[in-house]
C-alpha cells in the first residue's frame, strides 16, 4: 500500500501547536493546586502540635491555643446537616428513579439549579427562617443551612446511582410479591449501595468546607458548645476570622486549621474514589 498521506508542514505545525497549547492549559490549571497544597502543608505543619488539638482558639492576635472548638463545631454542624439532608436527599433520589415523569423531570432540574444557588443566599435564607425567629445564633441553624445544601446534592447522586441498577432485578423482586418499599430498601438501594454512599460522602466533604452559610447562622465561638442551641465555631469560620486578621500568630493558626480541613475534605474525596472506583455523575 503506497497511499501514505504526506501532511504539509504547515498542517503539521498547526496541529503540534494547538495540541501543545491544550496540554499547557492543563498544566497551567494545576499550578494553583500545587501552590495551595504546598503552602498549606508547609505553613500548616508548623502549627500542629498536641495543644493544637486539645485547646480552644485564643483571642485573635494572641499566640498559643488550638482549634478543638472548631473541630467540635464542624463535626456537630455537619452531623446535624446529615441528619436532615441525607434521608431527605436519598428518598428524593428514590422518588426520581421510581416515578419518572414530568414532575420528576422538573424536580431533578430544580435540584440541579439549587446546587448552583450561591451558598451565601442559603445563609441569609436560614437566618430569616430560624435565627430571626429564635432570636439566637446556633449550631442547629448552621446545621439546617448545610442540610438544605445537601438535599439536592444527595438527591442527584442517589438518582444517578439508582438509574444504573438493572430493571430486571427490580422486576424480579416485584414479581416475587415483595412490596415496593422493601424492594427499594433491600434490592435497589442495596445494589446501588456504593454509588449512594459515594454521593453522601462527597456531599459531606462539600458542606464541611462551606463558610458562607455559617456566617449568619452558627456565627462562630471561642468556646466549646454546651448545646446545639449555642453559637458554634467551625474550621472554616476559624480560617476566615484568623486569616483575615493582621497578626502572624493568627495566620499560623489559620494555616493549621486549613491543613486539617484539607486533610478531611481531600481525604474523603480520595477515599471514596479509591474505594468505589466509580464516578458519580452530577456531583460537582
Amino acid at each position, binding site marked *: 500500500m503506497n497511499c501514505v498521506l504526506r501532511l504539509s508542514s504547515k498542517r503539521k505545525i498547526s496541529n503540534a*501547536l494547538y495540541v501543545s497549547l*491544550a496540554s499547557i492549559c492543563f498544566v497551567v490549571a494545576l499550578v494553583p493546586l500545587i501552590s495551595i497544597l504546598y503552602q498549606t502543608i508547609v505553613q500548616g505543619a508548623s502549627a500542629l502540635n498536641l495543644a493544637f488539638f486539645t485547646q480552644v482558639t485564643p483571642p485573635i492576635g494572641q499566640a498559643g491555643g488550638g482549634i478543638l472548638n472548631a473541630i467540635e463545631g464542624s463535626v456537630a454542624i455537619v452531623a446535624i446537616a446529615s441528619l436532615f439532608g441525607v434521608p431527605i436527599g436519598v428518598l428524593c433520589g428514590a422518588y426520581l428513579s421510581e416515578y419518572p415523569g414530568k414532575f420528576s423531570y422538573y424536580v431533578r432540574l430544580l435540584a440541579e439549579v439549587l446546587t448552583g*444557588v450561591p451558598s451565601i443566599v442559603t445563609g441569609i*435564607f436560614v437566618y430569616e427562617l430560624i435565627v430571626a425567629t429564635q432570636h439566637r445564633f446556633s449550631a442547629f441553624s448552621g446545621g439546617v443551612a448545610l442540610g438544605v445544601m445537601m438535599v439536592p446534592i444527595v438527591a442527584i447522586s442517589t438518582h444517578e446511582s439508582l438509574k444504573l441498577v438493572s430493571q430486571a432485578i427490580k422486576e424480579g423482586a416485584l414479581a416475587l410479591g415483595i412490596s415496593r418499599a422493601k424492594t427499594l430498601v433491600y434490592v435497589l438501594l442495596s445494589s446501588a449501595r456504593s454509588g449512594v454512599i459515594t454521593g453522601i460522602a462527597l456531599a459531606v466533604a462539600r458542606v464541611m468546607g462551606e463558610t458562607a452559610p455559617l456566617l449568619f447562622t452558627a456565627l462562630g465561638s471561642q468556646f466549646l458548645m454546651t448545646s446545639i442551641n449555642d453559637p458554634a465555631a467551625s474550621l472554616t469560620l476559624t480560617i476566615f476570622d484568623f486569616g483575615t486578621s493582621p497578626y502572624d500568630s493568627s495566620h499560623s493558626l489559620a494555616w493549621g486549621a486549613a491543613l486539617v480541613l484539607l486533610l478531611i475534605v481531600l481525604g474523603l474525596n480520595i477515599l471514596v474514589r479509591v474505594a468505589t472506583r466509580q464516578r458519580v455523575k452530577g456531583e460537582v
Partner: protein
Amino acid sequence: MQETQPSRARSRARHSDLFLFVLVLAAISVPLITVLMLYELAKGSIPSVEAFGLSFLFNSDWIPNPPNGGQPILGALPSIYGSVVTTSIALLLAVPVSLGVALFQNELAPRRIRTPSVFVIEMLAAVPSVVYGLWGLLNLIPFMRDNVEPILQTNLGFLPIFTGPTMGLGMLTAGVILAIMIIPYGSSVMREVIAAVPRSQREACFALGATKWETIRTAVLPFARTGIVAAVVLAMGRAIGETMAVTMVIGNVARISPSLFLPAETIPSVIANEFTEVAGNDIYFGALFELGLILFAIAFVMNLLGRVVIARLTVKAGRELRA
C-alpha cells in the same frame, strides 16, 4: 384463610400508600426549599424596596448611616459593577483554559493518563473556598502586588484599567482567584458536552486524513458549540455567587473606578461583610436582603438556562448513540 387474604392485600396496599407518601414528601422538599427561599428573601427585602424602589439598582452611593442621622442612602451599583468586572476577568481567563483542559482530557491525552488527569482537576474543585481565600490573601496578593501588577503597569499603563497604586488587594486579584476556582467546574461541564459529540463525526474526519487538531476544529467544536456556551453560562453563575475567596482578596470598598488594581466589592462580599453589623437599621438590613434576592435571581436564571440546554444536548446524543 379466605378472610386473611384480602385483609393482607389491603394492609399491603396501605403500606404502599405510606411508601408513596414518604417519597412524594421527600421529592416535594426540593420545590419547597426553592419557594421558601424566594419568599423569605422577598419578605426580607420589603423595607429596602419600599424606601428605594427601582433606584436601588442605579444609585452609586452606599451610606448606611448618614452623619446627619437621616435615612440611609443605599444603591447596589458599586457591588453590581464589582461583580460584573470580576466575573468578566474570571471568564476571560478561565474559558480558554477550561476548554483546553477539556480537550486535553477528552481528545488528546494518552488513554493511560485520562483518569488521573480528571482526578486531579476534581481535587482542585474539592478545595474549600475559604482555603482559596487564605491562599489568595497571604500568597496570591503579594505575588500580584510585586510581580504581575507592576509589569502590567509599565507595559500597559496607558490603559485606564491598569492605573493607580499596585496594592494586590483589588478587582484583578479577585478575578484571577475566581478564574482558578471556576476552571475545574467549567472544564468538567465542557468535558461532558464534548463527550456527547457522536463518535462517527470524529471517525469520519480522521478517515478523510485530518489531523487531531483539524478534527477538533471541524468536527468536534462546531458540534459542541451550544453546549460550550451553556458551560460558560453555568461557570458565570458560579463566579457571580462565589463569596469567601472574593471577600478575602477584594478589599471591600464601595467604589466604582476603572482601575482593576483598586479595592472594590461584589454583591456577595457586601452581604458577607455587613450582614452582622446592621444592628436595628431596618432599611440597611432590607438592602442586604435585596442584594441576596438579586443574586438568587441571577444564579437561578443562569443555572436554569445552562442546565436545560445541556440536558437537551445529552439526551439527543444518547438517542443518536442508540439509533
